[in-house]
């Protein structure tokens, strides 16, 4: 008797760009420590927004702006 092999259905892989990053993620992307990211926010070099419970998030566009060499 032939047994059908169950096939796993893979959801379509979507390449979604993140809209925002945590401070830790931003620090890793910028290659600096966490405190330096807070300094950038404090000095208004990096704009941050707040999540539901007040945690700071960095919009992707802000990181790109800072990492742009132009």
């Amino acid at each position, binding site marked *: 008797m032939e047994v059908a092999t169950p096939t796993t259905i893979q959801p379509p892989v979507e390449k979604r760009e993140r809209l925002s990053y945590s401070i830790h993620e931003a620090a890793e992307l910028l290659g*600096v420590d966490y405190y330096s990211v807070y300094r950038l926010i404090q000095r208004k070099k990096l704009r941050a927004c707040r999540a539901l419970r*007040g945690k700071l998030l960095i919009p992707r566009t802000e990181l790109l702006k800072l990492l742009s060499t132009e």
Partner: protein
Amino acid sequence: MKRNGQPCEHTVPNYSGRLTDAEFLAYNSVFGAVEGDFKELSTVASALAEVEKSFSQFVNAATVSPEIASEVVEAAGAKWDVVKPLLKVAGCEMLWCKRHVEGAANYGIVERLDPDSPLARAQGACSLQMTSLDAPTLLRDFLREQRETLGLYANDIIAEAHERIAEKYPGQDMDRVAKAVEARCAKKISSEQATAPTQARTRREGMRV
């Protein structure tokens, strides 16, 4: 003393209240999640306290220092003599600097990043953060700004703790756990607030080279 039938017998650092077994377990779990950040916060707070304690030595080092600097950095199109490092965290140092412009001493705070970091590659490794013709004013302004940054950092640690509590203990009253984490952060950043607000004679800079 009992709360919800449970004895409140656990104490945690910098919190005057006592926690029940469940709260104490929650506190350890939540604080464990933010401990790395708390350690970094503590390191910066201690470094700032050290500068506050040695305020006059830092001022003297800039105003009465020999004319030959051990190190020179370039920031905002000018060469600055490094007087002393003020603050060092992984991949970044804040340097207490001076230079002479037309015979007058000019003081500056220069941030120097790890030159291999993506931020330094994009924006330059050295950036002039603040300048002033008055060394004590500049140092006070620097300390005040760092204290504000520490406050921002501490608030984010507290927000993270609230998020963890909401995720791990939905519908449970963990108010005292959140308050205990808040108290510990507040205590850490409140120490040795020696800097007084000053007149805004310090120029903020932002250009990297």
